[in-house]
């Protein structure tokens, strides 16, 4: 019965609806821009001026790309947490953002209570482990085999609970990340290149390095350990994993714990850049376009998606944003992702969607 085969994807532009939609969207965009610029020199400002600026001040371009790279790495870290969980348990974990806040708050909160910094890190890891066990016991196990959307909903319940719990334990006020105590570097390296100054924050460099190391460790973990192989087996097929005697429950605990570690590291890095507060939860939403770009199941996708989104939105905001009043960063990422998505509906690295009948 294998004479079932992939259904070729429909040609996008052949569809009159899409065509019409694109034209309309284009016209609206053009009209909005035109109005904004009083109709003078619009095309110049869109297509020529930004590139002139790039050429005129290469140091700013380099700085923009660096900024994009760093935020890209941080987006990727959040996305990584999503991917790990989605890959192993098919759960779209809405709670990843709050897990970042919760982990960072626990760390800082413990330190405030007088626990030495490194001990606080270890204790926080313990808390994240307990959280993973609790989530597995209380939420995932009773909901096993439910549709994805139900599990998604359950993670919203977790979010609500963690917000209330975190605030009642640690209070809502923002806290300083204990960057010094964790020997995270401060200050900047100023490079006098490209006819100007490119300033690289040491904390950003550290973030990039730590993220890379963590990704490498995760890759090794997946590739060479028994648990890692089991995780991949689960990702491929729950039933197959069960049939080779892997306990799904253990796997879930491990995956959620891993996501918790990623959340803690993300929280430390973001926290060091601004501060640790519940507002961080909003930043976590930025991981969503990264996810659609990179695919929900691909770790390299999360990384590369993060970088594309990070650099794309910074360059877009910096060079094109002023044309329509700035602040376009809030939605640009989604449009970048959407653009990619129209051509690759499963994301850059996602598993191919094959329709069978």
């Amino acid at each position: 019965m294998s004479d079932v085969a992939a259904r070729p994807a429909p040609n996008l532009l052949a569809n009159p609806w899409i065509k019409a939609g694109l034209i309309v969207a284009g016209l609206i965009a053009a009209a909005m821009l035109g109005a904004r610029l009083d109709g003078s020199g619009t095309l110049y400002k869109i297509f020529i001026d930004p590139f002139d600026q790039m050429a005129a001040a290469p140091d700013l371009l380099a700085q923009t790309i660096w900024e994009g790279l760093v935020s890209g790495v941080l987006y990727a870290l959040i996305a990584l947490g999503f991917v790990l969980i989605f890959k192993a348990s098919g759960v779209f974990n809405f709670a990843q953002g709050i897990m970042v806040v919760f982990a960072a708050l626990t760390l800082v909160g413990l330190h405030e209570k007088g626990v030495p910094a490194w001990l606080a890190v270890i204790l926080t890891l313990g808390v994240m482990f307990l959280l993973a066990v609790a989530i597995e016991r209380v939420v995932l196990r009773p909901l096993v085999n439910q549709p994805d959307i139900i599990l998604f909903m359950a993670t919203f319940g977790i979010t609500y609970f963690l917000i209330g719990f975190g605030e009642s334990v640690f209070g809502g006020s923002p806290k300083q990340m204990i960057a010094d105590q964790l020997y995270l570097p401060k200050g900047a390296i100023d490079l006098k290149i490209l006819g100007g100054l490119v300033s690289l924050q040491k904390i950003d460099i550290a973030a990039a390095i730590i993220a890379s190391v963590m990704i490498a460790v995760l890759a090794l973990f997946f590739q060479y350990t028994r648990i890692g192989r089991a995780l991949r087996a689960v990702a491929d097929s729950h039933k197959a994993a069960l049939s080779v005697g892997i306990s799904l429950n253990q796997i879930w605990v491990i995956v959620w714990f891993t996501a918790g570690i990623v959340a803690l590291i993300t929280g430390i890095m973001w926290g060091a850049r601004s501060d640790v507060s519940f507002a961080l939860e909003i930043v976590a939403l930025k991981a969503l376009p990264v996810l659609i770009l990179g695919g929900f199941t691909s770790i390299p996708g999360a990384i590369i998606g993060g970088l594309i989104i990070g650099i794309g939105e910074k360059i877009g905001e910096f060079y094109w944003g002023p044309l329509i009043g700035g602040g376009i960063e809030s939605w640009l990422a989604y449009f970048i992702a959407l653009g990619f998505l129209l051509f690759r509906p499963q994301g850059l690295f996602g598993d191919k969607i094959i329709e069978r009948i």
Partner: protein
Amino acid sequence: MKTSHLMRATALGALLAAASVPAHAQDSIYVSNNAYRTGPFSGSGTPIGDGMRDYFAMINERDGGIGGVKINFEECETGYDTKKSIECYEQAKSKNTVIYSPWSTGATLAAIPRAHIDKIPILSMAYGLSASADGNVFPWVFNPPLTYWDGALIMVRHMANELGGMDKLKGKKLGLIHLDAPFGKEPIPVLENLAKKYGFEVKLYPVAAADMQNQGSLWLSIRRDRPDYLYNQGWGAMNPTAVKEAIKNNFPIAKLVGVWWAGGDDDARAGGAEAKGYKSLSFHQAGANFPVIQDIVKHVVDKGKSLAPKEKVGENLYNRGVYNSMLVAEAIRNAQTISGKKVVTGEDVRRGLETLNITDARLKELGMEGFAAPVKVACGDHNGHHKAYVAEWDGTKWTKASDWMEPLKDEVRPLIEANAKDYAEKAGNWPKRTEACEKSS
């Protein structure tokens, strides 16, 4: 089955009716107060809430209330969410609050149209709708001691003072970092007017609410444009991030000036030692060395009745809460004097607010000598456009770094009147003011 439904509805109704029965209507004055100790803005909301709460706790403890009547001060948690603020308003209304402090621009805007129907005075202290300073149009809304427009003016004055005169402003660049929301956009028209008048340039740097902690590209633009000064109309997590980014991007921190809401101790502290020199406008002093704060420490904090840790008492935003409660308390006291009643109503408090005149002498009596500039509210002018100063972060605390500066009332007042008129016209049969002005005060 259906009967159970009916019962449930009835029970619900009864429950909520119970929730809103005026408590102790006879022997105390009910003051409802919004606060946000939860949510993304809780960092700023918590110290303010503590200050407000502790001042009334102190008044009740030390003086036995105001004019012998205890103040039943109740906080309503909003999480800085407009939906919850509206619920809080309805709750406050059903409990016959004598005053409503919305504590967010969104909540203020939603409450303004209702206030004159429900006869509840609104105190939006130096926030909310600038135009509501026009008492002839908004008899129930009060926003002393100054508006964001005054703030923008003082910012420009500060710039001129440092540069050596208004004429030195020519050719300078002032950047406005602002939350991309009505609150953040408030100073824009005034700054643009002044820019035209004095020949400087205004650059706008909007920060979307979702990107409060993600200001990378904005600061790159600042690096590119090289503004001479930056004015930060920000709130919540946006402020510490801005301070950190300024340091990161080598922007001279002394040239970064925040609106009074960007003057939290935590905002500055985020920048570490390098944040020394960060400035913010303010209309009251920080610090615990005022008799009023000492009284709070003595009667409330030391007795373990405060929610604030002792070291936070006297911080800038804590003192702002105290200041807000002081205005409320003085309005109630004034209302008692005018009406001759002990237990005043919302309408009395409105009159009390309208004739509020807190002189230096009165401030001294309150234990607030030098704490704040005198405040006077008038029938037509519900703001007063009072003095403010520039505070500077010295690395550990806020200090007063300039003289009290008078905003240019003549610049602002016409704008306020024009906008108030516009508001009333657009609202369609906005009620004419029927409340009489007090003869004397």
